[in-house]
């Protein structure tokens, strides 16, 4: 115990702030992941279905979705935070704490999530879609039986990548007062120069990322036939 308090004195001293920070980070991760999946999935389906050569080509819908996704992906995340400020206030009536982080996190993640899911669906060979059409499947049946089901490992791989990226963005929102591990690193590690806290935050983030990666890989293996 003595050696530990020599090695990471501030961590021991402020140990009580860590659990909350971890919980905040995990809540932001879960909410962002779930909401951006729920919104990103239909967007991805819309893009795949309406793209030229898709099962229901529609130049306008495709063009609009595609451009919106590109636009939001082009906005640097730190700029998205002030940009979403108004919306955050309108929805949550606050601009601090984890609630303040949801809007920019989700808005920033949806396009990324949509692109990852889209490319997983695009990996399904054209011939499989064609065979489905030749069987007499409706458009909706092709979506539910082919696009949503025939490349689940690819989708999980994409979601894993997104979640790991979200961890990075949660650290960023922490710097503007949203809480979480990033917040600790800034308030203690940076402003009070307690580098041992920065170090432990880093280790914790790495652990979270590894767990996501491990779990993702496991699911991919489970769903690959």
């Amino acid at each position: 115990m003595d050696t530990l308090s020599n090695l990471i004195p501030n961590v021991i001293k402020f140990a009580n702030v860590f659990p909350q920070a971890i919980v905040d980070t995990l809540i932001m991760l879960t909410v962002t992941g779930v909401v951006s999946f729920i919104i990103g999935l239909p967007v991805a389906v819309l893009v795949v279905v309406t793209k030229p050569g898709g099962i229901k080509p529609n130049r306008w819908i495709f063009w609009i979705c595609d451009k919106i996704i590109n636009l939001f992906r082009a906005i640097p995340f730190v700029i998205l935070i002030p940009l979403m400020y108004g919306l955050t206030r309108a929805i949550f009536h606050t601009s601090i704490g984890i609630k303040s982080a949801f809007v920019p996190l989700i808005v920033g993640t949806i396009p990324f999530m949509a692109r990852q899911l889209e490319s997983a669906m695009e990996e399904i060979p054209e011939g499989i879609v064609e065979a489905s059409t030749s069987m007499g499947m409706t458009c909706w049946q092709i979506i539910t039986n082919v696009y949503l089901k025939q490349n689940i490992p690819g989708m999980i791989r994409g979601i894993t990548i997104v979640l790991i990226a979200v961890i990075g963005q949660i650290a960023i929102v922490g710097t503007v007062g949203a809480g979480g591990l990033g917040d600790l690193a800034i308030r203690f590690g940076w402003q009070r120069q307690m580098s041992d806290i920065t170090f432990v935050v880093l280790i914790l983030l790495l652990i979270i990322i590894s767990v996501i990666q491990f779990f993702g890989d496991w699911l991919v293996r489970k769903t690959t036939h």
Partner: protein
Amino acid sequence: MIRLEHVTKTFKTKDGDVHAVKDVSIHIKKGEIYGIIGFSGAGKSTLVRCMNLLERPNEGKVIFDGEDLMEASPSALRKARAKIGMIFQHFNLMPAMTIYDNIALPLKLEKRPKDEIDAKVMELLDLIDLVERKDSYPSQLSGGQKQRVAIARALVNDPKVLLCDEATSALDPQTTQNILRLIRRINEERKITVVVITHEMFVVKELCDEVAVMESGRVVEQGEIVPVFTHPVQEMTKDFIATASNAGKVDELIAKHHPLVALKHNQQLVRLQYDSSNTAEAMISRISRKWGVDCSIIFGSVEIWRDTPIGQLVTIFTGTDEQIVRAIEDLKENNVQVEVIKRGHIE
């Protein structure tokens, strides 16, 4: 069963229009096996995809079982498609479904009762001899097994037609034979009309009743296979036959002035073609005895077209003009086709 009338399909691409199918009219009769052959890029796949409107023709009519599909409503078209099974070169099975579920899928979509689905799927698994693999996934099967599963899936709706687009092109010769036999059995036992697309001559030979030969988007020759391939009219058809049999080699030998086909002044190089009722030795010995024509055989073969054996002989006849003319007449009277390929000259 399927009638195409003046079907034209043009693809618009960045490099201009590609005329994949030009004004094709064919009639595929109920119960037959119809072959479509041609070299790569001839438009075979596009043509067959027009039959179930996977590709919508720019012009023309597609009539399936009396119904004009071009005029059909989306739901009527889907119903028609369910009655047109299709198999592909790359099988196109659902990777995330077991063999059983792959075959059952079309019925499940129609929400048929479970026991009915089960009975049908088990019957088809038995037909393709994969009952014990029903819980495997496609990635665990060989190419030939995957194609058999694809065939079972195509049959599950009791289709009237089975379209096969290069169904055996990804398989080895033995497996190909296996699949061809299965297709033939399906045609005979279930009375399903079959359309076979291939660039492999022996597939047509093995399977087809009628054939259409395609060249750059057009059907240049069509009809029953024995007449089409024994009396080809179009260069394209001849080329195709030449690539598939040794008989074509003779032309190469002649072109190269090979010593084997060098002729003396009293010799003629002839190609004989005959069907099963003639046998080569009897023919040759008769004309040499009767007309004094000496025959030396350069090359001979017997190929089985569907069920008809077709013999080919390339021989050099030696004798006077008179003798040779008599011998040829005799042969023709006995239903042997004779083509004089080259005459010897007096040096």
